[in-house]
């Protein structure tokens, strides 16, 4: 079945990714991430000086500021701030930088659905660029169930979301082994573990009416798609490092 946006041919196809790291000069780390027509720019400052009232004695304070494309920040933006902050807090090794601030600003640049997922992916790329110590990386995908066909659509556009019965935002982490011949077996074991989705979901937010079965189907489809996001993030980091190492290799 073809999708409403006409550029995609299957329900599980994602829009093309685009990313760019280290594009702002004042921030300590920055990244832009696009899912087709949706784009989010994220900047990270830190570990930096923290105000006394925000200071935590044993760990870094994580502050997330989400800014909308149009108008003043509202309830939806506050909710997005909380979602990102609470997902990242356990992921960032904040005890390594006590009494400091890690400030994350998430700016919507283009909105064509799935802004929260786009923001998650932009944020992780910006944190990697800033060199903030992390337990693992994450990848986020949104899916929806069509109200007419009951089909699961991945990475829907605004137009498609208008016909949704329910929408589901997922964030998955990436606990894999370093690719190397010595531990391929172990890597395989872990892949199987992750197929059963155990302990891999970092964030899940569903709205609308759906059955238990539908939820698990969405989670499964989302997990597969998140692997593609993880792979993309790895390639993005690799490309950046290759550029840095050009002189030493030659």
């Amino acid at each position: 079945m073809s999708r409403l946006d006409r550029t995609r041919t299957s329900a599980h196809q994602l829009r093309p990714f685009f990313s760019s790291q280290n594009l702002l000069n004042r921030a300590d780390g920055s990244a832009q991430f696009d899912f087709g027509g949706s784009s989010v720019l994220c900047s990270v400052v830190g570990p930096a000086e923290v105000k006394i009232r925000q200071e935590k004695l044993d760990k870094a304070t994580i502050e997330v500021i989400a800014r909308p494309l149009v108008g003043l920040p509202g309830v939806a933006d506050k909710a997005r701030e909380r979602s990102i902050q609470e997902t990242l807090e356990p992921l960032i090794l904040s005890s390594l930088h006590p009494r400091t601030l890690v400030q994350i600003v998430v700016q919507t640049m283009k909105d064509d659905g799935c802004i929260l997922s786009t923001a998650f992916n932009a944020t992780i790329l910006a944190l990697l660029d800033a060199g903030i110590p992390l337990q693992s990386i994450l990848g986020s995908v949104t899916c929806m169930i069509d109200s007419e066909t009951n089909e699961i659509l991945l990475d829907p556009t605004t137009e498609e979301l208008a016909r949704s019965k329910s929408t589901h935002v997922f964030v998955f982490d990436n606990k894999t082994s370093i690719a190397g011949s010595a531990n391929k077996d172990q890597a395989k074991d872990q892949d199987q573990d992750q197929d059963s989705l155990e302990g891999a979901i970092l964030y899940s937010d569903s709205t609308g009416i759906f059955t238990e079965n539908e939820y698990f189907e969405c989670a499964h489809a989302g997990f597969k798609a998140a692997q593609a996001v993880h792979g993309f993030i790895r390639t993005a980091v690799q490309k950046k490092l290759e550029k840095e190492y050009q002189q030493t290799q030659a």
Partner: protein
Amino acid sequence: MKEADPSTNEREFLLQALKDGARIDGRKFYDFRTLRLEFGSEYGAVEVQLGNTRVLAKVSCEVIRPYTDKPTEGFLTFNTELSPMASAAFEVGRQTDEEVLVSRLIEKAMKRSRALDTEGLCIVAGEKVWSIRVDIHFLDHDGNLVDAACIAAITALLHFRRPDVTVVGEDVTIHTLEQRNPVPLSVHHIPICVTFAFFDNGERMIVDPTFLEEQVKEGDMTMTLNVHKEVCALSKAGGIPMDLDQILQCTRVAIVKVTEITAQIQAALDTDAKKRQVSRK
């Protein structure tokens, strides 16, 4: 977080370099940094890069009821809140003096110069008018936010298309973009800001200061002109006193810059229009 002051060495080096006729980034005194304009997929979204300074402008519109004393006038509003993304010194919900000044300057240059025909935004007098909103997002701060923001705002307004409407008696139909080609706003003229910074008791003056140059400067002045050699706004808020001749000299420099920038904006708009035509076919 406060902005860290530059070291004495940086300060003195910058001033010495200016005496030797050079700027830190290799520019001449009256050079702007490289200006880049990038349009989004939607109408009215423009990202402007002026060297390392980056601004995003997004225009949106809605239909609202006009004020009773001005029944035929539409609205034009600007949102210029400075985001901590541009610099950690900007805090959410607390404006510094610099922020207020930047916001005021942009309003003055864009709104009070009557660049946009607000009467043309009327749909039904006393009942329905368009309200045009320009959101300006500061993404990266390497000095001269005002000029970059003004270029972004006016380019976004020129690029923007509002939905077409038909009025039959009392009935107002707003057509979607698919039904009818959207219509551009009527922009009277293109005001462009040119900011000067002064050093050495006003003896040396430069155009388009970087962040470091802004930190070291002794005074500044922002001039808003259009291509017809009309001064739309002039703002010199404090700083060292200046000679009248120097202000005239500034206008002569500014008019050259305004002509260049206007031409670049027009060229960018034309290229984008052609691209859109091709993709529609």
